[in-house]
């Protein structure tokens, strides 16, 4: 899948036409060409310059791998969803829980407070799915087993004597 994606993205048509790759900020409704990331930093000097540009320490700066997805020199920041950030801290932008000059994650808009969360859950997703399906499956298995073996609670009962045209359930004769 990654190889196919890389081949698709490295197609000469796309590469030669200078398509602005990082379009995520368009979702915020405003784009400035000066915000376009630079090319992938190859030398140490370029890395230091890129770290300074994004307000990061050189030892904290790590770019996305140059695998064709077009991130350029944009830093690969740790993904922390908005609900995991401190609600009581005095953020410059409290609705985004972000300070001025802080670089945004490339997928920040998918991890806002009312959207997805990558918070660590008490149990892993597979454990949760397994528990739910396990319990439902256990009940279903018991139900099917009982239905298959016809383990019914048989007790004597009369069919309901519902009124019907022409049907007589009782006749009233005197006792002899």
């Amino acid at each position, binding site marked *: *899948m990654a190889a196919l*994606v890389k081949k*698709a*993205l490295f197609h000469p*048509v*796309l590469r030669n*036409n200078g*398509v*602005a*790759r*990082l*379009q995520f900020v368009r979702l915020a409704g405003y784009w400035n060409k000066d915000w376009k990331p630079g090319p992938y930093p190859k030398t140490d000097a370029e890395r230091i310059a890129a770290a300074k540009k994004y307000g990061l320490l050189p030892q904290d700066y790590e770019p996305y791998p140059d695998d064709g*997805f*077009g991130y350029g020199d944009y830093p690969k920041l740790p993904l922390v969803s908005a609900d995991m950030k401190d609600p009581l801290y005095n953020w410059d932008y409290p609705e985004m829980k972000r300070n001025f000059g802080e670089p945004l994650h490339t*997928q920040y808009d*998918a991890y806002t*407070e*009312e959207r*997805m*969360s990558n918070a660590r*859950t*008490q*149990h892993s*997703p597979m454990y*949760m*799915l397994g*528990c*739910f399906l396990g*319990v*439902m499956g256990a*009940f*279903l298995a*018991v*139900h099917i087993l*009982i*239905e298959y073996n016809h*383990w*019914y*609670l*048989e*007790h*004597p*009962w*009369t069919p*309901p*004597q*519902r*009124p019907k045209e022409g049907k007589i359930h009782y006749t009233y004769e005197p006792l002899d």
Partner: protein
Amino acid sequence: MIVDKFLYQKISFALMNVMVLVGVSGLMFLSLDSSIFIEWSFGGGSINFSLTLLMDWVSCSFLTVVLCISSNVVWYSKSYMGGDGDANRFILLVLGFVVSMVILIISPNIFSILLGWDGLGLISYCLVIYYPSKKSNSAGMITVLSNRVGDVCVLLSIAWFVVLGDFNFSTWSLGGDLTSLMILSFLVMVAALTKSAQIPFSAWLPAAMAAPTPVSALVHSSTLVTAGVYLLIRFSFLLGELGSSVLMFISMMTMFMSGVVAIFECDLKKIIALSTLSQLGMMMFAISLGLYQVAFFHLLSHALFKALLFLCAGVLIHGVGSTQDVRYFGGLVKNFPLVSVCMNLANFSLCGIPFMSGFYSKDLIVELACQDSWGMSILFLMFVCLGLTVLYSVRLSFLAFISTPGYGSFCSVCEQDFTLLGPVATLTFISLLSGPSLSLLSFSYPVLIFLPWVMKMGALAVISASVVLSVSVLGITSMGLSSSTFLSTFSGFMWFMPWLSGQGVLMSSMKKADSILKILDQGWLEFYLGKVTESSPSKFNTISLGFQRNALKLHFSIFLVWLLMILIYLI
């Protein structure tokens, strides 16, 4: 701010008048054993539209209950929402919801049912997100998206109804093949399961408690969630043997799950929401047994005492300073004597205590289920669910009214607002009378059930044993269960359904969507639709500007080309 300070009273009074009118009409239809189709035809010639309404005992009785609850909720909202700045928006949304519900109830065909069905889903979303908070937003999203699954199923079923030859459920004719009927049955059932919050679509109902309490009383207890049950009752002819078996299993599991989870829940409104879920499971169970009339009877009686329960919860929440955690309550019987009586009466109905309104419908379902031969798992689960209902109801009453007063109780105000207490008392009175009166009206002949005495007394024995068990366990701790066991974790997270149906579904598709975004939206589409639409007009512009340069050679050569074409044509 409310523009007209009598607006709420006027609306409540109007709803009550319509309720009386509809109720009398319903009694008339019942006594005459008749129904009325009202059809309007629009247009003419080749374009012809018709709008059909159905008025019969079922629709009139349901309308009466809905309008009664709406009238009391609007009256209640005058005080509960009176201090809110958006009270006008609130009342408009509530009225819109009532109109959608009316359209759903009086519609005899799937087209007009869709109008009401979609309206219910969308307006309930607007009501859930009424308070501007992130939590309400998230709750609204899960509510509307879960309901949207059902909306899509109803839309698809409209196409499949063409196979039957008729969109009306009252003039149906099963003319289609078996596959089409199975698909139709599946679609209608899924739509009903989503609206009535059955497994696996149960996560939205407790989340929707982020809405204001009057909304919960009207929408999430008695109208919106019962729309699914009503749809299945009207389209009951579609349920075959397989559909009934699947519905039976799902409804049983929903009842069991909601009963267990309610024992571990600490939010007052969520406990009541889970009890609604349990009773909806009971209604679906009755439908799966073929007891459509009994299911409808339980729907009506449940709507009344559940709305009452929510209104009482609202008074308590308001009184203790807007906290919903029952662990902050305790000893409220001294401060809220009337509300505690009404809430306990509603709880008795919920548990099926003899001769309360819930007893008439719930006990009837249990006895009719015992009358036929079913698998032991079904009967066992049914009695367990009866016991669980009693357990969480007694726990709720104990924690709210009897236990040691908590922080909220010391800060609480006394019940003194007649605008809140009036609807509570009215609904209590109506709820108490609804059981015996509806049982007389719903069944045209007495239902005599002959069972062995063990099975006949089974429901009462389970209720009594559950009361004793819950009191003895509560006497030790608030529930006597450790929070670190698998059961408490599994149940506390509602069997992990909120995470699985929310983040679980999102996470699995997020990565694929991200790849598609990068390749298509930010890649090829950006080239073909973005760059090309930017560069193509400029290229054409350059060419057309070239033609406008007034170059003599260009004009003369165009003239020569035209002359040649004319000569060729003439030749």
